[in-house]
């Protein structure tokens, strides 16, 4: 066994010259290149970087769960309490996993086993490492659920993962990680899929537990604002290499490396907008939503009214379940409202006959959140973009399809040769560009963007936002921009609607609502939304 005397007693983890590569059919590529860092007791280290930067691979190595093959650790040492875990046998390493170092994952629905109760999944930690009795393990699991503030833990322990909300599941994950009081918790994008207010609570809980037990916390995130809010130290990874490391405040205020600077500039919410006065008083609205409601088993949308003006970006913000997507579905006529009217240039679209509706659909297009799921993997880009013209055959002569596809690809910043490729050959940002090109195919007046940039890395997000704004001017479009991410809406929208439980809480000019919110809910949302500005104050 290799041991190393640590310089200071409080050093928990030392990663030294770690390099990891993946062997694939196309050859071997380096995912992590000579990474060095360390972590002390009671400290939070943020590892930031975009997808594919090697953040999660580094975490898997520390947790001993890197799949080998295809993964291969080329070099390096990972000292955990003076013990190089890479040199341990599987059995010895397994004893440390979960007990000395534990991990919290992003997508809790898939990371918790769907067929076992959450209580038994937490209790398993005690059975594995402490050989406690079934009953004792269970009691401790219930106590942990109580600690992470799951209401009614005695009863909820018997429930299964799908019976919890996303935020609660993350609490269950945290309880599981805490079970054996590890020295280090690695949180791999712990709040990415959560609403801002829930995210704030989870981060608060993690910080609280870190202080209570004097643990080291490694926070892996693509969200710079979160890193800014809760970390002490930060390392910036790009293509497997550490491009910058240091005290969080220093790195954020005074980034040295070009990549870090680019990341900092991509953070949404900082764009200083040139004020474009929309002559609203002189133009009629394209779309008037009048008192629409939609009832499923619950009230999805309750007495909602708003207008959309030509060439305007209207942001709709709110947490999951607030009715944002329901409104989008109603406008697209994918669902019919229970009450109310939707007027398009003064005509009620709910009274449209088949032909009117067919023509209306050209004018309203949509871009969805997940560019991996929303493009048909068996169609090439040419077919995807030209399909609307096949359906609306009178729109464009067949001979012009090719040149129009080329035009559209160029206007969304892709190459005309990309037409013969398939979706899987593109990155997430490129796929979203394809989705936008498809939405533009029928010269729409309105494009609904339903969380269209939520799945993208910050630098890509910034590019897509810029693209959307350019396209608005070029094609005189109006956008309804649905998002849970407030800074993005701040960058893009002219007016904003804040929704909660199917109702509009507040609406108005973006700058007014964001800088001088009137309603308590809006204030709470803004407060919960992490921002790097606090570092500067």
């Amino acid at each position, binding site marked *: 066994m290799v041991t190393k005397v640590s310089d200071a007693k409080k050093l928990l983890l030392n990663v030294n010259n770690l390099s990891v590569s993946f062997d694939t059919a196309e050859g071997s590529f380096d995912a992590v290149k000579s990474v060095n860092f360390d972590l002390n007791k009671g400290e939070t280290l943020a590892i930031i970087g975009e997808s594919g930067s090697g953040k999660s691979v580094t975490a898997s190595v520390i*947790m*001993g*769960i890197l799949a080998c093959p295809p993964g291969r650790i080329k070099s390096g040492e990972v000292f955990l309490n003076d013990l190089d875990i890479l040199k341990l046998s599987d059995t010895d390493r*397994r*004893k*440390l*996993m*979960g*007990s000395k170092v*534990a*991990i919290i*994952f992003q*997508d809790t629905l*898939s*990371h*918790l*086993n*769907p*067929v*076992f*109760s959450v209580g038994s999944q937490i209790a*398993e*930690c005690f059975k*594995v*490492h402490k050989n406690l009795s079934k009953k004792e393990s269970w009691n401790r699991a219930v106590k942990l659920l109580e600690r992470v503030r799951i209401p009614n833990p005695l009863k909820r322990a018997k429930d*299964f993962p*799908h*019976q919890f909300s996303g935020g609660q599941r993350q609490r269950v994950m945290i309880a*599981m990680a805490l079970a054996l009081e590890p020295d280090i918790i690695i949180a791999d994008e712990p709040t990415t899929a959560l609403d801002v207010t829930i995210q704030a609570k989870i981060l608060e809980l993690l910080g609280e537990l870190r202080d209570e037990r004097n643990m080291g916390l490694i926070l892996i995130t693509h969200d710079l604002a979160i890193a800014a809010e809760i970390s002490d130290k930060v390392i910036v990874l790009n293509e497997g290499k550490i491009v910058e490391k240091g005290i969080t405040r220093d790195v954020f205020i005074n980034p040295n490396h070009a990549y870090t600077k680019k990341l900092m500039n991509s953070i949404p919410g900082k764009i200083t907008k040139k004020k474009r006065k929309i002559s609203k008083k002189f133009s009629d609205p394209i779309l008037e939503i009048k008192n629409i409601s939609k009832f499923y088993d619950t009230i999805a949308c309750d007495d909602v009214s708003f207008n959309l003006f030509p060439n305007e970006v209207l942001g709709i913000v709110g947490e999951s379940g607030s009715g944002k997507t329901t409104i989008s579905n109603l406008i697209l006529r994918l669902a019919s409202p229970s009450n109310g009217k939707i007027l398009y240039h003064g005509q009620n679209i709910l009274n449209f006959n088949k032909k009117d509706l067919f023509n209306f659909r050209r004018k309203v297009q949509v871009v969805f959140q997940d560019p991996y799921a929303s493009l048909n993997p068996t169609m090439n880009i040419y077919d995807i973009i030209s399909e609307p013209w096949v359906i609306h055959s009178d729109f464009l002569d067949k001979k012009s399809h090719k040149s129009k596809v080329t035009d559209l690809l160029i206007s969304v910043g892709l190459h005309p040769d990309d037409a013969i490729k398939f979706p899987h050959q593109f990155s997430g940002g490129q796929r979203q560009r394809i989705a936008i090109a498809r939405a533009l195919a029928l010269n729409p007046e309105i494009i609904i963007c339903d969380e269209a940039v939520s799945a993208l890395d910050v630098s890509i997000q910034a590019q897509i936002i810029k693209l959307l704004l350019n396209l608005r001017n070029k094609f005189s479009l109006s956008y309804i921009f649905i998002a849970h991410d407030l800074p993005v809406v701040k960058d893009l929208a002219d007016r904003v609607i804040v929704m909660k439980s199917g109702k509009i809480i507040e609406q108005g000019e973006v700058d007014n609502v964001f800088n001088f919110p009137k309603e308590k809910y809006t204030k709470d949302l803004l407060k919960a939304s992490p921002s790097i500005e606090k570092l500067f104050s």
Partner: protein
Amino acid sequence: MRQYLSKRIFSSILAITGLFVMVFFLARLTGDPGHLYLPIDAPLEVRKEFSEKHGFNDPIYIQFGKFLGDLTDGNLGYSLRKERPAIDIVLEAIPVTLSLAAVAMSIALAGAILIGSLAAYRPNGIFDRISRVVSLTAASAPDFWVAITAILIFSVSLGWLPTSGIGGVPYWIMPIGILVIRPLGLLVQVVRGSMITALSSDFVKTARAKGVKEKVVIFKHALRNGLLPVITVAGDQAAAIANGAVIVETIFGWPGIGKLMIDSIMQRDFAVVQASILITAIVILSINIIIDIAYAVLDPRIRHK
């Protein structure tokens, strides 16, 4: 779930009723039982009397009405050949087949779970490669040929096992062995496929990060999730055997439902055909309901729907 089950049971009853009506009419399309039952030179009067006695001369709707009337009294008719209530004959045969099916399926399932899981643990490893070839061979082996070859080797040449008949353990070995081969081969492939998916799931990563032993990762965390598709195929296979392991029963002289059904169709023993089909249908539909229950037991997400 309870509502779902009662719906399933109700639709099963409908299916049995439909099946029953069909069997009644289709059986009578095969011709006059008298042709097969009576000696080939039987005089016309004897034939008339035979038909009269058993009601075969009545218009078919009257026969059907009578059949329904008997059915409400729980009477499934008398066997022409054996002159006993048809239901008694069927109830003697069905346990033979069911015990064959139960033993064969238990062995096939247990074996497939073990082999398939280990193969899935290291896809394309040496164990996986061997098991893939062997399971494919097993899944495509013609059972009549295997059965006859086995008799030739183990009974005739080596003299280790009895050629046919029922009795103690030695009598069971060959029939069970033959019945296991095909479901085992098929199930190994299904288990392998679904376990590869289960083992690459995120929750397996979580289990490993907890320090859970690999054995537990495979046979607890992954297997519980990987079993669902396996259960469906296993149920199908079990139903196929319950439906009459005709070839095995015939070759090894086991008086099961498969052999009984074939014999009574050949003899136009309508009452026995009807009774055996009714009982097998009930067995098969019960297997399907058991699969549904197994699904709910294994997966809480289905249970809570």
